């Protein structure tokens, strides 16, 4: 097992769609309460009873950081993505390449992206989630060796769940 840093882990079965994470996130980063200024955003489909908070997964390597043309985005020591607003030219590349759609542009003037910076290691969204749908986890990597087709199938299914816990499952 190797640790690559921490990220916010989502348990969609516990998320109730109350948007409290979004409101605290925007307060923590922008000093005001707003859904659109949040770095985490809850996707809801009522007819499925479905709520899912989308937030930066601290990819390694991160396409947003790799492709940022001005070097405004960089990786910090927690694995978080940091933004240097002075260098950002609002080109939207990060927003377009993010595989999770977790890097929205600031909606009013679209001058910079809203990317989770893990609040310095104690994310407000995790602290304020009323149902523990959000938690903080180390990104770890586990190697397993399936011995037959049934095990391989079970592991591939489990991988989706493990991914939500922040665990990469590789077949050896």
């Amino acid at each position, binding site marked *: 097992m190797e640790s690559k840093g921490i990220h916010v882990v989502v348990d969609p079965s516990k998320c109730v769609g109350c948007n409290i994470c979004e*409101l605290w996130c925007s307060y923590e980063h922008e000093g005001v309460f707003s859904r659109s200024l949040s770095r985490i955003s809850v996707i809801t489909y009522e007819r499925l009873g479905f709520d899912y908070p989308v937030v930066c997964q601290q990819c390694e390597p991160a396409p947003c950081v790799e492709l940022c043309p001005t070097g405004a985005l960089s990786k910090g020591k927690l694995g978080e993505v940091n933004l240097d607003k002075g260098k950002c030219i609002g080109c939207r590349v990060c927003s377009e390449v993010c595989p999770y759609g977790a890097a929205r542009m600031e909606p009013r003037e679209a001058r910079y992206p809203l990317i989770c910076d893990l609040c310095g290691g104690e994310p407000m969204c995790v602290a304020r989630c009323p149902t523990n749908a959000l938690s903080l986890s180390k990104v770890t990597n586990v190697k397993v060796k399936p011995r037959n087709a049934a095990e391989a199938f079970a592991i591939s299914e489990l991988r989706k769940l493990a991914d939500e816990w922040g665990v990469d499952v590789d077949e050896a």
Partner: protein
Amino acid sequence: MTRLKGYGGKVLRVDLTHRTYRAEELDPSLAKAFIGGRGLNAYRLYWEVPPGVDPLGPENKLMIATGPLVGFPHGLGSRLNVTSRSPLTGLLGDSNAGTHFSEEMKFAGYDQIIIEGRSERPVYLYITESGVEFMDAEGLWGFTVSQTHEAIRHELGDQRVQVGAVGPAAENLVKFAGVFFNVYRAAGRTGMGTVLASKNVKAIAVRGDGYIEAENVDELIKVIDEMLRRIYENPQYWPRRIMGTSRVLMAGQRLGFLPGRHFQDPVVDYAYDVSGERLAREYNVKVRACSAGCALPCARFFMIKRGPLAGLMGEGPEYEPLGGFTVRVGNRDLDRALKIILKVADYGMDAITTSEVIAWLMELRQRGEITDEEAGVKLEWGNPDTIEELVDMIAYRRGIGKVLAEGVKRASEMLNRGKDIAFHVKGLEMIQADPRALKGYGLGFAVASRGADHLRSEPFVEVEDDPELGKKMFGEPEAAMRLGVKGKGKLINYFEDLNAIVDSFESCKNTAENMLILDFDMAARAYTAITGIHVTESEMREAGMRIVNIERAYLVREGVRRSHDRLPKRFLEEPLRSGPAKGHVIELDVMLDEYYDVRGWTRDGVPRRSTLLRLGLKEVAMDLEARGIKLED
């Protein structure tokens, strides 16, 4: 005028006739006097919708308003009020829903949306910070509530757009159609959807990228944390989170206030089979929050897992539809009840009124005053096929549905039958609770400003049956005893004032009121922290009284007096036949006298001039007198 902190700051007026709109500044003094939401709407209704206006005519207006707490992560949920002159009662129409719509409209900058006139063609309104777009809704006409939601979000290409829509029932001018938000959340009562449809508006969609601030955010966070602590420490936290309001069904069985077979059986032998407890064990798959900022999510998502209806899923049900389509109509089949409840919501009808008109028709049949041939369906208690067919007939105004679609008061007048068992007050049908076993609630039904409704007062403390609590809160032991009579006037006064505040903050009653999280003191502290306008506890209570009084003034202007504050005869004269409250009737007149005295109204139910003046409603007093209504001092 500077924008008041914590408010959107603007009032949006939409003129459908001329397809124009304008955003006015919200007057801060008005925001202080009437807080927001229900209070603000009541103020507009009084001053902008005079007597004699046809509820379904273009002169009627429909208001949607949100409150000062909405948009903050406070833990109490975010709601909105829809207010208009009611086509069902002809009086004050007002309905409240928990929905993300309220938060979105605030982030778009609007505290209140006022819809005026009538559009020539079907439209839906798309409201954002930059204004209103009148979108073509010709193709949406006839769609159900969920279809409308999906079509609009698809057309606008944005899943975050919040939609309030009406279903086919409203289009067919069923008098008790609601406005439905987030697919399942209903502003169901008093026919607000009918008003919207009469204006040729199929839906309102809103999206807001703005933000709100608090004047003293550190103090606000302190208040929020204290409210959250109270929520989490409350022993009701888990039962409510697991069952929501559906748990009331078993409570009704225990206390004997169920509306079994149209208020003939206060207890039934199949309560568990149709209870929230059974739903939690066998049906619920997930808990959801109906709205933003909720720390006690109680909207359950369910799925039927076996049997012929396996795979049917949806949100809810709350106690009112659950009780309405099971015990009230004598139906033991929970699966079928769930299907019917979803159908009623998708047609966009008020579940309480729908269950009353069906139960009323069944009791008429039981008394032999109508035949199956005349009704066009086989009328027997608890037959799910009959119930479902009647729901279809009402929504599309087919056969006897044409009569039932008028609500129980007018239906009994049209057939000239069963007037004594038409269970309504001021034209609004009674909820799923028998006032003979809950006397404070009964008084609440009689005096509620929108008709037979518990949410104006919700005096839950009387269910505690705790004489010490009654003595402590109101100086009368009986005030907190459900079969007591003395002190109920004080009880209802207190909780009506409190609920006016909770409704105007647009918070959730399950937490804010039922757990006493947002009491007058907490509300005053929250308001002060948000706006920077210093408000004391007693000023907050006064604001509650002001809202109750302006609503009463509206009713008085329409001719409502003590003689309208009545309960149906069965509750006054026929003793309960079984259950823990067996033998009880409700002693309404004694309680009414006390209620009016504490309110500062005459014994005829008219606010005294001194009461109105004390609450800063001088113009209202002058208006009433100018219309020939004599006010006593």
